[in-house]
């Protein structure tokens, strides 16, 4: 196992889609037994690059060499044959199959002269692999029934079962809790120890710097540079990524007077499978954060507040008056906005234009007599206004939303709710899977909104976001309030501790 021997090299790799040059003459190399961080803003070409390696997209130009020999990546199958496994951000497991079946899909052990699947053997082998990951998980359980973190593990187990020499991980920790992230790190390091090379894509620089041996930065489809991790710094990398130095990576605590008038009062609120007896008050112009790991019930709580999932008990007062919120429509009518954490499945309207995506909520207000005909001029006005306000980058109002970068898509989703000029805004994971530049922008936007008197409830799995953004932060653990911080008492260690259930003295 000669470490630092070159495993894979791409030469002038190029891939274009109608209108975009996604990957532009990229020379890139991975060595055996290294963790190679791949960073860059959304639309920088990371995903396309790894999809080429995964054999999903055939490259237009350039070559790929493994151990110095040129190899073809015409199909996912071929890249697996070359012992490359890609773990995509959107999972590629089959919900209706068991964990074991997923790990060995296409390579099931056979009996009866290869006619039938040997399920006993299948389950044993799967269990063995999971054991090496110290992953206690019933191989017979359906993937549709297991947690996100567990799915991540299954993906890794799948990669191992191919005994891959190169594993590509796209944002493996994006949706995981600190604890789970630790777990993944261990596994990744122990893979490196086995001489497996890893391409590690992440938006969390601190992860890259903790894990990686080398880091490659991409921008606008081009490779900016590859550095040894020792010989570079976060700010340098950020500079390479955004092309300009982003000051205050996170919006800073401005001097703000503590908000006074209550807007939303929640008492004794319970949601099935989520939270028990939660009470809190959201004031005007306040940014209230709910911190909590997967299973803390945070998402359930916020979804229920917007009427997505039914509440079990509790009362809600909005501007002093008791209200019932059974459907999102109710919340919207009251003046509550909502930005989902699941852009792809719950946010975007893929078949529709950016314009239509932006105005979907307020469309009736832009309509003559609310139903008769849409006043295109008005619609375009509100579009251009919101576009410049949020600085959304796009080709034109009639461009399909799916062709925008993640950051801009997120802005559209926020803009969608802002058009309703709501009084309160609920955001789940507002910056998940978007690049640093956009992150900073979105934080600035949220600040501005709060300063203008908008009340904001958000939840995030990104520690810095929780520490720096909110005026007030409530930590939930297993559905109950375990800690509470104000700007003054905020303490990241205690926050993390509270999130994973160590609450000794954390209550402030």
């Amino acid at each position, binding site marked *: 196992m000669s470490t630092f021997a070159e495993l894979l090299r791409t030469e002038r790799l190029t891939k274009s889609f109608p209108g975009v040059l996604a990957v532009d003459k990229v020379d890139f190399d991975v060595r055996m037994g290294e963790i190679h961080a791949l960073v860059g803003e959304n639309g920088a070409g990371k995903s396309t690059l790894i999809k080429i390696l995964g054999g999903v997209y055939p490259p237009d130009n350039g070559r790929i060499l493994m151990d110095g020999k040129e190899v073809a990546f015409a199909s*996912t199958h071929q890249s697996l044959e070359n012992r490359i496994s890609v773990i995509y951000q959107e999972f590629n497991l089959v919900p209706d199959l068991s964990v074991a079946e997923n790990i060995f*899909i*296409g390579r099931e052990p056979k009996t009866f002269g290869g006619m039938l699947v040997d399920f006993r053997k299948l389950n044993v082998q799967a269990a063995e692999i999971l054991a090496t990951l110290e992953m206690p998980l019933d191989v017979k359980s359906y993937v549709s029934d297991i947690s996100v973190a567990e799915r991540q593990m299954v993906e890794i187990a799948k990669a191992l079962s191919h005994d891959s020499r190169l594993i590509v991980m796209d944002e493996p920790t994006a949706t995981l809790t600190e604890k789970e992230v630790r777990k993944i790190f261990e596994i990744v390091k122990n893979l490196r120890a086995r001489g497996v090379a890893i391409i590690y894509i992440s938006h969390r620089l601190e992860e890259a710097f903790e894990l990686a041996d080398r880091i490659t930065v991409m921008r606008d489809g081009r490779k900016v540079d590859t550095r040894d991790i020792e010989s570079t710094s976060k700010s340098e990398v950020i500079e390479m990524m955004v092309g300009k130095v982003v000051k205050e990576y996170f919006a800073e605590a401005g001097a703000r007077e503590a908000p006074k008038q209550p807007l939303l009062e929640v008492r004794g609120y319970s949601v099935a499978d989520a939270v028990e007896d939660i009470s809190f008050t959201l004031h005007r112009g306040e940014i209230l954060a709910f911190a909590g790991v997967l299973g803390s019930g945070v998402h359930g709580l916020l979804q229920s507040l917007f009427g997505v999932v039914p509440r079990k008990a509790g009362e809600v007062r909005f501007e002093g008056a008791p209200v019932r919120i059974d459907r999102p429509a109710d919340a919207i009518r009251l003046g509550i906005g909502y930005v989902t954490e699941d852009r792809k499945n719950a946010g975007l309207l893929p078949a529709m234009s950016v314009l239509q995506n932006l105005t979907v909520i307020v469309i009736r207000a832009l309509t003559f007599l609310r139903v008769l005909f849409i006043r295109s001029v008005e619609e375009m006005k509100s579009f251009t206004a919101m576009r410049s306000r949020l600085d959304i980058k796009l080709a034109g109002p009639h461009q399909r939303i799916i062709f925008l970068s993640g950051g801009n898509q997120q802005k559209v989703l926020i803009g969608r709710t802002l058009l309703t000029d709501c009084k309160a805004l609920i955001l789940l994971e507002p910056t998940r899977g978007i690049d640093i530049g956009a992150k900073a922008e979105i934080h600035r936007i949220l600040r501005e909104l709060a300063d203008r008197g908008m009340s904001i409830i958000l939840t995030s799995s990104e520690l810095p976001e929780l520490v720096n953004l909110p005026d007030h932060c409530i930590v939930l653990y297993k559905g109950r309030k375990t800690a509470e911080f104000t700007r003054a008492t905020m303490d990241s260690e205690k926050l993390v501790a509270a999130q994973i259930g160590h609450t000794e003295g954390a209550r402030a």
Partner: protein
Amino acid sequence: MIRFLKLYEKFGIVIFIALGSIFLVAVTPNFLKLDTILNILAQAAHGAIVGFGMTMALTSGGFDLSVESIMALTSVFMALLIPVIGIPMAILVSVLIGSMVGVLNGLVIAKLKVNPLITTLSTATIIKGVALLVAGGRMIVIMQKQFMTIGTGKLLGVPVPIYLMALFFGLFYLVVYRSSFGRHVAAVGSNESAVRISGLDVDLVKIGVYVLVAFTAAVASVVRTSQALIGMPSMSPGFVLVVLTITILGGTSLAGGRGNLWGTLLAAIFVSMIYYGLNLINVQVFYQMLAVGLVLMLALFIEGLRVRYLQAAKAMGIKV
């Protein structure tokens, strides 16, 4: 309650069969006779056999409306070939030809990525035409009487079609639940892109599915043709809707991913029982239609309530 509902998901149709039987026993003495019951099962056979194929198609997230035409084509070729190459060979060849239509369906659906519904709708038209062309539009009488045995003969007093139905049930049970192909079919129906990424040849799986459906249709055609002793270029019009009714009544979802072969088998028997039973008591055909429709709607109604109950239970935090 929950356990009962889970059970209902699999065997709910049994309740319908029971109720139906009770009703028929009450209204006619001729129902509770061995040969009546055997006939009902025998008449369920072709519906069930094609139903198994259709179950597979739905599991893969697909669909096949071309089964009628495939049956017609097979029927015609059998009638033409039997005098030439003898019964066994003729059956073999024509079933093969019928299955080839499945290859065509599969290729168009997998390679051209045309929606299965519209594809099979089109191939149905094409193959209907081909069958008529091959037969020159004639009904082709089959002289070899011994061919009748397959559809009408008895073994130990049990009609042959019942054996075929049992055989195919066993066969498909293994394929769907135990073979890797069957699992891949479910996988494709459940999350196609995932299967692609896993390096599996999705197209091959799909083609396989449509070949299997065509195969079942061809076999059903053998049974039917031998009962008629005529090669028919226009066979069993409206059969595809019956098959869909059976498959759906059996509880296989259109969403793909999970098929219910038991359900299909039982539903086929149930549907056969309705028609047979109502004809025993001379119920007008319109009321038979109404009965089938209402039963289907009732089944769906209950299914709907079941799902709602489970959701409500989830919302109340009851472990489901």
